C-alpha cells in the first residue's frame, strides 16, 4: 500500500520533496500523506466490512440455512455495523478531510500536524484491537448498538464486549482529536479573503461534522466507561437489581448514535455540493441555504435520539416530542435535495463518474429520506423498528447516500491526489452495477420488513413469505461485490497509468485545483488571495508576486509511540496489570518526547 502511493507521489513534487520509504510514511506528519493513510485504511476496512456483509447475505439466501452458526452470524452483523460506521466510512471521510480541506482553504497543512498523525495511529490501533477479537475468543456479538444488559458479564461472558469497549474508546478518542484539529484548522488557517461564506461546501461540512464529533462522542465514551466498570469492577450502572437501568445505555448510545449518522452523511453532502456545480458548470444554487440547512440538520440531530427507542415504552409525551422533532429534520434535508437539482437546472451537465455518483446520491438518498419520515411517525415505527424495513432505510441513506457520495469524492479527487484519472469506462460500469446491485439488495428489504421479518436474525423459517425477498437481496449483494471488484481493478490500473490529469482536469472552481496534481509538499508556492466563492471561475483569485518563506513540520515518530502506548495500556486491561502499566509508561514517555522535540 505504501509503495503504490509512494510511486504515485514520485512525480509532481514541484517545490518540496517527499522522502521515500516505509519509515517516511510511519513518521509522516504531512496532511496529504496522512489523508492517504486514512483513506487506504478505510478502504481496507470497507472491504472487510463488505466481506462480512457477503457472509451475512450468504447465510440468509435461503430459509433455515446453516452456512454460519448463530454465534458466528451474530459476531458478523455486529462487526459489519461497527466496521462500516467507524472503520470504513469515517476514516475514508477523514482521508478526504485531511487531504482536501487544507488545499481548499489554501493552507500549508493542518493546525497541529503531529496531533494529526497521532489521531491516525490511534484510530488504526482501535480498529486493529477490535478486529483482533476474532482471533482471541470471538468478536463482540451484541450488535453495534450493544444494548445493556445483554452486554453484562453474565449475558456476554467472553472477552468480545471488552474488545468492543476498548477498541471503540481508542477510535472515539482518535476521532475527537482529529475533529478538534479540523475545527482549529478551518477557523484559523483560511487563506486571505476566504471568508466563511466563501468556503467550499466540503470544508463547511467538515467543520460541521467536526463539531458533531466532539459533542457526540463523549456521551458514548461515558456509556462505554460505565459498561467497562460494570463488567470489570462489578458496578451496577445498567443492572436493574442494583438500581441501575439498561435504558440509560440506550439514551447514552443514541445521543451519540443519532448524530453519528449525520457524521456519516454530511461529508457526502459536502462532496456532492462541490461536485454538482463543477459538472453542471454553474455555481451552487442557494449557497447560504445549503450551508445553513447543513448546520440545522446537525443541530436538530442532537434532539431526536429517542426515535430509536419508540418501542421502549417512554410514554406518549416523550414519543410525540421525538416524533415531531424527527419529522422537522426532513425540511432542511429536503431543501438540500431541491438546491442540488436547481444547481443542475439550467446547467451544462457532464456525466463523468463523480457526477454520476452525485446524481445517484440525490436519487437514492431521497428514498432513504422518505422511509425515514415513515418511521419518524412513532406509531408507524412500532411496526418498523427492528425489522428489515429499517435495514433498507439505513442502507439507502448510508449506501445510497454516504457510499455514493464517497465514491463521487474518490473519482473527483483521485486525479488531484495521484495526478491520474480513473478510467471512465470502468467507472461508468462500476456506477451502474453498484446502482443495480444496491437496489436489488436493499429494496426488497422494505417488503421483508413490513411483512414481519425482524433484523439481526441468523435464520428465518420458510412459509412466512420472506424467501423471495431474501434471495433477491443476496443476488443483489453479489452484483454489488462485482461492482466493487471493477472499482478495485480500475483503482489499481489507474495508479499505473500516465500522470496526465493536470492541475484542474474537471475545470472546477475551488482552491484545491489551483495547485499541481499531486500538490507539492507545501501545497502552494505562495498563499493565494481569494475574492469570490468560486475563485477559479470568476477571476476570484490573486497570487501575490514574489517568494514566500515557510517552514514545513519535521517528521516525527512520537505520535506513533504515544498511540502504541495507549494500545498497549488498553490491551493490558485484558492481559494483565503489568502490560497496562508498561503501556501507560510508553505513552507518557511518548508525550514527553513529543513535547520536547525540536520544531526545526
Amino acid at each position, binding site marked *: 500500500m505504501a509503495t503504490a502511493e509512494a510511486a504515485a507521489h514520485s512525480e509532481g513534487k514541484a517545490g518540496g520533496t517527499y522522502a521515500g520509504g516505509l519509515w517516511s510514511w510511519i513518521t509522516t506528519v504531512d496532511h496529504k500523506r496522512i489523508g492517504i493513510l486514512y483513506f487506504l485504511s478505510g478502504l481496507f476496512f470497507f472491504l472487510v466490512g463488505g466481506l462480512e456483509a457477503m457472509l451475512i447475505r450468504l447465510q440468509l439466501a435461503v430459509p433455515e440455512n446453516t452456512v454460519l452458526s*448463530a*454465534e458466528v452470524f*451474530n459476531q458478523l452483523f455486529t462487526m459489519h455495523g461497527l466496521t462500516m460506521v467507524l472503520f470504513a466510512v469515517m476514516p475514508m471521510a477523514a482521508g478526504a478531510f485531511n487531504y482536501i480541506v487544507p488545499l481548499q482553504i489554501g493552507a500549508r497543512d493542518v493546525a497541529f500536524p503531529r496531533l494529526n498523525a497521532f489521531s491516525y495511529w490511534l484510530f488504526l490501533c482501535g480498529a486493529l484491537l477490535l478486529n483482533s477479537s476474532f482471533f482471541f475468543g470471538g468478536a463482540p*456479538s*451484541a450488535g453495534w448498538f450493544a*444494548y445493556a444488559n445483554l452486554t453484562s458479564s453474565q*449475558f456476554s461472558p467472553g472477552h468480545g464486549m471488552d474488545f468492543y469497549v476498548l477498541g471503540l474508546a481508542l477510535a472515539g478518542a482518535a476521532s475527537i482529536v482529529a475533529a478538534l484539529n479540523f475545527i482549529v484548522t478551518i477557523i484559523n488557517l483560511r487563506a486571505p479573503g476566504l471568508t466563511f461564506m466563501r468556503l467550499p461546501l466540503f470544508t463547511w461540512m467538515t467543520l460541521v461534522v467536526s463539531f458533531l464529533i466532539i459533542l457526540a462522542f463523549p456521551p458514548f465514551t461515558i456509556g462505554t466507561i460505565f459498561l467497562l466498570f460494570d463488567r470489570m469492577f462489578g458496578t451496577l450502572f445498567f443492572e*436493574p437489581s442494583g438500581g441501575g437501568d*439498561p*435504558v440509560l445505555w440506550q439514551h447514552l448510545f443514541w445521543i451519540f448514535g443519532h448524530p453519528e449518522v449525520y457524521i456519516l452523511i454530511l461529508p457526502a453532502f459536502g462532496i456532492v455540493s462541490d461536485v454538482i456545480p463543477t459538472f453542471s458548470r454553474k*455555481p451552487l*444554487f*442557494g449557497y447560504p441555504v445549503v450551508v445553513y440547512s447543513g448546520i440545522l440538520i446537525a443541530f436538530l440531530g442532537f434532539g431526536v435520539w429517542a426515535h430509536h427507542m419508540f*418501542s421502549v*415504552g417512554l410514554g*406518549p409525551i416523550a414519543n*410525540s416530542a421525538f416524533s*415531531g422533532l424527527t*419529522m422537522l429534520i426532513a*425540511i432542511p434535508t*429536503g*431543501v438540500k*435535495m*431541491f438546491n442540488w*437539482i*436547481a444547481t*443542475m*437546472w*439550467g*446547467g*451544462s*451537465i457532464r456525466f463523468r463518474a463523480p457526477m*454520476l455518483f452525485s446524481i445517484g446520491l*440525490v*436519487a437514492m438518498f*431521497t428514498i432513504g429520506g*422518505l*422511509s425515514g419520515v*415513515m418511521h419518524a*411517525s412513532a*406509531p*408507524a415505527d*412500532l*411496526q418498523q423498528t427492528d425489522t428489515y424495513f429499517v435495514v433498507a432505510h439505513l442502507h439507502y441513506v448510508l449506501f445510497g447516500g454516504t457510499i455514493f457520495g464517497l465514491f463521487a469524492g474518490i473519482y473527483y479527487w483521485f486525479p488531484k491526489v495521484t495526478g491520474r484519472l480513473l478510467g471512465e469506462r470502468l467507472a461508468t460500469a462500476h456506477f451502474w452495477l453498484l*446502482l*443495480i446491485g444496491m*437496489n436489488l439488495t436493499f429494496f426488497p428489504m422494505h*417488503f421483508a420488513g*413490513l*411483512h414481519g421479518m*425482524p433484523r439481526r436474525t*441468523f435464520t*428465518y423459517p420458510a*412459509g*412466512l*413469505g420472506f424467501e*423471495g*425477498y431474501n434471495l*433477491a437481496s443476496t443476488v443483489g449483494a453479489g452484483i454489488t461485490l462485482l461492482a466493487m471488484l471493477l472499482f478495485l481493478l480500475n483503482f489499481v490500473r489507474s495508479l499505473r497509468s500516465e500522470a496526465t490529469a493536470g492541475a484542474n482536469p474537471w475545470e472546477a472552481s475551488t482552491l484545491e485545483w489551483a495547485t499541481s496534481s499531486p500538490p507539492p509538499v507545501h501545497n502552494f508556492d505562495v498563499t493565494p488571495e481569494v475574492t469570490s466563492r468560486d475563485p477559479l*471561475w470568476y477571476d476570484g483569485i490573486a497570487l501575490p508576486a514574489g517568494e514566500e518563506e515557510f517552514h514545513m513540520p519535521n517528521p516525527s515518530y512520537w505520535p506513533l509511540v504515544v498511540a502504541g502506548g495507549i494500545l498497549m495500556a488498553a490491551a493490558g486491561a485484558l492481559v494483565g496489570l503489568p502490560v497496562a502499566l508498561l503501556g501507560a509508561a510508553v505513552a507518557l514517555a511518548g508525550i514527553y518526547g513529543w513535547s520536547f522535540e525540536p520544531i526545526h
Partner: protein
Amino acid sequence: MTDGRPRVPGHRRMLMFAALAIASVAAACGGDFPQSSLRPQSDVAREIDSLFRGIFWWAMVVFVVVEGALIVAIIRFRERPGAPKPRPVHGHTLLEIGWTLAPAIILIFIGVPTMITLWRIDRPPERSEVRVEVVGHQWWWEFNYPDLGITTANELHVPVGKTVDLRLRSADVIHSFWFPRVAGKRDLVPGRVNQLWFTPDSVGVYPGQCAEFCGTSHALMAMRLHVEAEEDFERWVEQQLREAVEVEEAGDDPLVSAGRDLFFGAGGCISCHQIRGTVAAGILGPDLTHVGGRGTIAAGVLENTLDNLASWIKDPHDVKPGNLMLDMGLDDEQARQVAAYLLSLE
C-alpha cells in the same frame, strides 16, 4: 425546451432498470404473509396500518416530484456541443422559501394523524378484559393470566373481540413483544413493567416473534397467538385449569409410564420444569402442565410431534444454539419415552 433527439444511453438504461425493479417487486408480492404488518387483525394494528398507508402516499408524491425533477434536469440540461455557457444563477429566494414550506406543509398532514394515533394507542386501554402478564426469557415466552390462574408458554390464547391488556416484563435481557397482525412492538425491559393492548377482531392463529436482539438464539424466539371464539377460549381455559394428576389418570401405556419415571427421576427434568399437581416445580423452563396441548414447542420453532419432542429432549442445543435447557444425556429410546409422556399432558 424538451427535444426529440435520441436520448442518452444512460437515461435509457435507467428506464430499463426501473422497469426491472418494478417487475421484480411485483413478482415478489404475490405470496402469503402470515406475519405481515400490512394485514392487520385488530383495532390497534388497523389504526397503525391506515396511518402508515397515509404517510406512504405522501411519500410517493414527494418521491415522484423529486425524482421527476431530477430526471428532467439531467436530460434537459445535459452538455451539448456548442451550447452557450450556463448563466451563473446563485439562488432564488422565493423558490427556496417555496421548497422549504412545501415539505413543512406535507409534514403537517403526516404529523397530525401521527399524534392522534399515538395518543390513542400509547395510553392505557379504555377496557381491560383479558389481562395477561408476559415474561420474556432467553429464548421463550411465559404467559400468566393473573385473573384466571393460568400459566403457559409460547402460545397466547385470547378471545376475539375482547381487549387484551398485557403487562410486559423480562426475566433476563431486553426482548420485544411483536405480533405484527395485532399490534406494534413493545419492549420487555428488565426492571420495568411495560403495557401493550389490542382488541383482536378475527379468529385465527398468528405468528409473532421477539424483535429485540437478545442473544444467540434471538432468531428462534417465536410465538403464536390464538385468537378464538368465546366458547373455544372458555374451553381452553377450563382445560388449562385442570391439574396434571387428573390428566394422568386418563390412561397409561408403557411408553408413557416409562417416560414419566424418567421425567421425575433420572431425567432430572423437574429441576427446571413445573407440572402442576405433581412434585415437578422447577421455574427455569416453561410450565409443562399442558405441553401436550400446544401446537409448537421451543418457542414456535418445532411442531409439537413425538419425533420433534424427542429430538428436542435429546439435544436441545442442536435445535436452538445456546439455549438454557440442559442436555440431560438421554438416549433415543428414553427421549421418545419422555416425549410420549409429555404429549399425554394435554
